[in-house]
């Protein structure tokens, strides 16, 4: 009996050591997924998918500028998308090009500029693949602190502004007449989006961030009757996708970021099936 216990303990310990990085990856993924759910709902409701893509692409520029100027990457990766969002609002108000076209210009200019700046940094080896597709298995303990700190801040902001956010999503003019400060609330939403994108970059990378935001939300839509339900269900589905993606990556050695997105896609297909069965 004692011998059995010993073996069990040793095997558990080795499992813990072996899987330390897996545990970090799991915790990081779940933390990001928790906030990606509710934010993703707003991206879907407000049709901001392309906007999310644009901010994500500009986050790459944030990385390259951060490396070049030797600034903390967490700061530049949040600041550059935010600046880009402000530029977008400014150009949108000028009204000489459609938002769609503006996003196309800004998104790809930012991505191209980011890639060019990276190419100017021969001394620093920047792992482009991990930026583009995420590197969940390289998450460190200090990354975890940042992820959970920011995720908490985002959750608190979303909670405080929830009613106003729903209100400006339904109709900004009606909300404004009823006393909501629409500019303030939508700027806050942009800030939240930029923060979550900076986080999600670690999990799924620049090119797949929008997928992590919109696929769980779209899946949750089939299963919810209120905005709150949809936000919570989206969170849970995003977490499930992270766990499934990590498992897939662990057992059949696939890249974790794309595996998470594939899992989300599978869950979405299943939800479509559920809906058909229900109706």
């Amino acid at each position: 009996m004692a011998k059995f216990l010993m073996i069990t303990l040793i095997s558990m310990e080795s499992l813990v050591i072996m899987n330390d990085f897996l545990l970090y990856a799991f915790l990081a993924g779940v933390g990001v997924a928790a906030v990606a759910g509710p934010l993703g709902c707003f991206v879907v409701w407000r049709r901001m998918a392309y906007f999310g893509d644009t901010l994500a692409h500009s986050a790459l520029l944030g990385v390259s500028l951060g490396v070049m100027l030797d600034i903390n990457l967490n700061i530049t990766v949040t600041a550059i998308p935010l600046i880009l969002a402000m530029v977008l609002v400014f150009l949108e108000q000028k009204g000489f090009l459609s938002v769609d076209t503006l996003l196309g210009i800004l998104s790809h200019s930012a991505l191209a500029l980011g890639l060019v700046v990276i190419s100017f940094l021969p001394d620093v080896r920047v792992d482009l693949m991990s930026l583009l597709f995420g590197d969940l298995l390289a998450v460190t303990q200090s990354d975890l602190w940042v992820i959970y700190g920011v995720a908490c801040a985002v959750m608190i902001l979303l909670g405080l502004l929830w009613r106003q956010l729903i209100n400006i999503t339904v109709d900004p003019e009606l909300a404004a007449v009823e006393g909501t400060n629409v500019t303030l609330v939508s700027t806050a939403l942009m800030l939240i989006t930029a923060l979550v994108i900076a986080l999600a970059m670690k999990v799924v990378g620049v090119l797949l961030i929008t997928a992590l935001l919109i696929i769980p939300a779209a899946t949750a839509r089939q299963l919810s009757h209120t905005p709150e339900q949809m936000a919570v269900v989206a969170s849970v589905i995003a977490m499930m996708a992270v766990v499934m993606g990590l498992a897939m990556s662990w057992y059949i050695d696939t890249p974790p970021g794309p595996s998470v997105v594939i899992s989300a896609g599978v869950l979405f297909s299943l939800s479509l099936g559920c809906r058909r069965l229900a109706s």
Partner: protein
Amino acid sequence: MSRLLLSLNGIHKSFAGKPVLEDVSLSLKQGEITTLIGPNGAGKSTLAKIILGLIKPDSGTSLPNAELNIGYMPQKISIDPTLPISTCRFLQLANTSHQACHQALESVGIRHLTKIPIQRLSGGELQRALLARAILRNPNLLVLDEPVQGVDVNGQNALYKMINNLAKTLNCGVLMVSHDLHLVMSATDQVICLNRHICCEGHPEKVTQDPAFIDIFGQTTAIYSHHHDHDHNLHGEVLDDHTHQHGESCNHE
């Protein structure tokens, strides 16, 4: 004595160098129904948005009463089908009280639609839901932008009656925007004809010019006819400007 709710003085507004409103002055009073009519592009919605405080005029002043509380019914609303939201919840965005929302839905006659997703309402039902939201915060001024748009003739009649009754119950002022030059609620106290500037204003004529028309539309609506003392060219500019005077020379009561 009806209280002054809001007065606009000498409002000018232009978009990208193109004038939309020129020297518009008006006042809205408690218990009075004002109808703003004019052709498309006359600046009606812009004027309504200035009154609502959504846009700022280039010059001129908008002086609201300190107690002004506006209930707004927008021309149309489009809510993405991905947002799961019931009619009741839609109303609760304006007033969290469950009971108040049910009462408001009751008073516009769609209590039975409380739990239906707002995107599934028909055109007429949605107009009523928007009206219910407008009255939820006990406003003293209702601003209604084309409230009967997309509603059939009988429905329009019923909606006008409902607005009239609600305005009386709430004892509030009403500003109604309409692009329809022929069909104006007969209960209107004041009609303002807008085409960038105020062409003329006053009480609607109680003339029954066409009995067949009344047969169809009933007593709540009437033809409003008025004569301009000036003409517009294709650009909406006033021709023969010197003969135009606001107020006195307008050919109606």
